[in-house]
């Protein structure tokens, strides 16, 4: 065992502990830890507690039947995972998606990004011992859920973005409600900044903890908030503008510290940009149809496609192979959590036990998504 080779003089001081799957700091997930006193000397993630075989299941269902179960892995961010799927199928079928649908897709996916980041910040607040953050974020998240519910008709699983457009048009009342929510949320975020991000206690607990360098972030393939907090400016919305993203003005927030604090702060900055996008999209919403008529069993020509979008946690990608039959021949979901998972054992080294939950959750890791 490598561990003994590394720590041979005091090998019996090393204690192995398992964190999870039943543990307040790690749901649906287990981390194997090797501890020397209060220090973590080595760690190994043990995923797969929620592996449900999505990829195999999609080979048994046709392209439309695949929609509902494909959003389940990342229920916090369900529009974004479907967005990439819809883009892929649209590309295979050569669909010309109407402009209004493109805008609605963007609105929904940005609202979902906020919903997801709010959950992330809430739990991060909990792990950093900041109870205000969990109550505020969980409560405010519900206002965004209200908006999304008015558009998509469900609390979390909307199945809103489908191949060929979106499922239904936006009700007129949602436009005004959306703009109001944006205005209110802008003020709210200033308050988060005051109470959480400028809080000395939060700074002490998260500054310089779990630092990921820029080189490592690139080499280990980190994406999303993790990469952006380490100074890598990856953002599929900018790099390869899909759907209607070219029409909007927004920035890609990047920070360079690469620690737990930066990863939380990047999420806040992300939300600011999302609010900007939603506001622009609601104001400029074009008229027209919102979806193409595809029928219950669309014919998808043979071919392969690799589509990607920027989900809340990073680059969401699909590799779809069609052999001309009604069902996909192979469907690979490249989820951001799985891409960021390799970073975890890297960060959980030479840290205190008390820092494990913020580091783990700071990766914005959602085990259900990673396991698929």
């Amino acid at each position: 065992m490598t561990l003994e080779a590394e720590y041979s003089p005091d090998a019996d001081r090393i204690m192995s502990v398992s964190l999870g799957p039943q543990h307040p700091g790690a749901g649906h997930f287990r981390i194997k830890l090797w501890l020397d006193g209060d220090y973590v000397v080595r760690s190994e993630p043990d995923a797969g507690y929620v592996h449900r075989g999505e990829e195999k299941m999609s080979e048994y269902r046709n392209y439309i039947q695949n929609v509902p179960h494909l959003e389940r892995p990342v229920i916090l961010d369900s529009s974004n995972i479907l967005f990439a799927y819809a883009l892929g199928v649209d590309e295979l079928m050569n669909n010309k998606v109407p402009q209004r649908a493109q805008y609605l897709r963007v609105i929904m996916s940005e609202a979902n990004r906020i919903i997801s980041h709010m959950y992330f910040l809430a739990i991060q607040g909990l792990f950093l011992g900041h109870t205000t953050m969990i109550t505020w974020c969980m409560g405010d998240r519900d206002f965004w859920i209200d908006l999304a519910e008015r558009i998509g008709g469900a609390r979390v699983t909307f199945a809103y973005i489908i191949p060929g457009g979106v499922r239904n048009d936006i009700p007129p009342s949602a436009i005004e409600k959306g703009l109001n929510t944006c205005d209110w949320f802008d003020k709210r975020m200033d308050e988060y900044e005051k109470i959480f991000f400028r809080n000395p206690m939060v700074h002490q607990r998260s500054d310089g903890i779990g630092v990921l360098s820029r080189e490592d972030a690139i080499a280990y393939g980190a994406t999303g908030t993790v990469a952006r907090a380490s100074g890598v400016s990856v953002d599929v919305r900018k790099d390869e503008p899909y759907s209607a993203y070219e029409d909007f003005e927004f920035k890609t927030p990047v920070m360079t510290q690469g620690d737990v604090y930066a990863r939380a702060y990047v999420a806040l900055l992300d939300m600011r940009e999302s609010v900007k996008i939603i506001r622009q999209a609601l104001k400029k919403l074009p008229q027209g149809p919102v979806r193409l008529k595809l029928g219950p069993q669309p014919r998808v020509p043979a071919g392969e496609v690799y589509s990607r979008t920027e989900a809340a946690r990073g680059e969401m990608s699909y590799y779809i192979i069609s052999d001309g039959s009604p069902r996909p021949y192979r469907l690979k979901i490249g989820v951001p959590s799985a891409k960021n998972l390799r970073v975890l054992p890297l960060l959980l080294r030479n840290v205190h036990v008390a820092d494990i939950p913020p580091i783990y959750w700071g990766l914005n890791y959602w085990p259900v998504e990673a396991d698929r």
Partner: protein
Amino acid sequence: MAAQLTAKFPEVKVDWMKERRLKVSTSAMHVKEVGLFARSTLGFDHISTVSGVDWIAKNELEVVYFVGSTTPGQEDFILAISERIARDNPVVPTMVEVWKGAEYHERETHEMFGINFQGHPDQSHLFLPEDWNELPPLRKDYVSPGR
């Protein structure tokens, strides 16, 4: 880009999935050199994902590495490096030395398709239960119970 690759490796086959998506088909023998070249010369330093495909009719398994880039100006470019091997004895070299992030993706491909990555540090199960003893689930001849 395509010209550069074919000039360096005459045996590879390149085709465009679409604009800015280049698929490079090579063999298990050359895949590592192609990967190293793609990373150091062409600047594809950011592994995106690794996928396996089971071509049961042709009795072949395919491994595809999707790599992106953080080099300014080619962030939108995705290179897909693919290799095909026989289904009965699927052994390919690991790419962990080229892209460190490929480790868990390869581990997943190993358990889902039964492809052996030679030189991989740890090929134990990542997502499947520890006591999984049936066929690798994503092979086409594995039929899901309930179907």
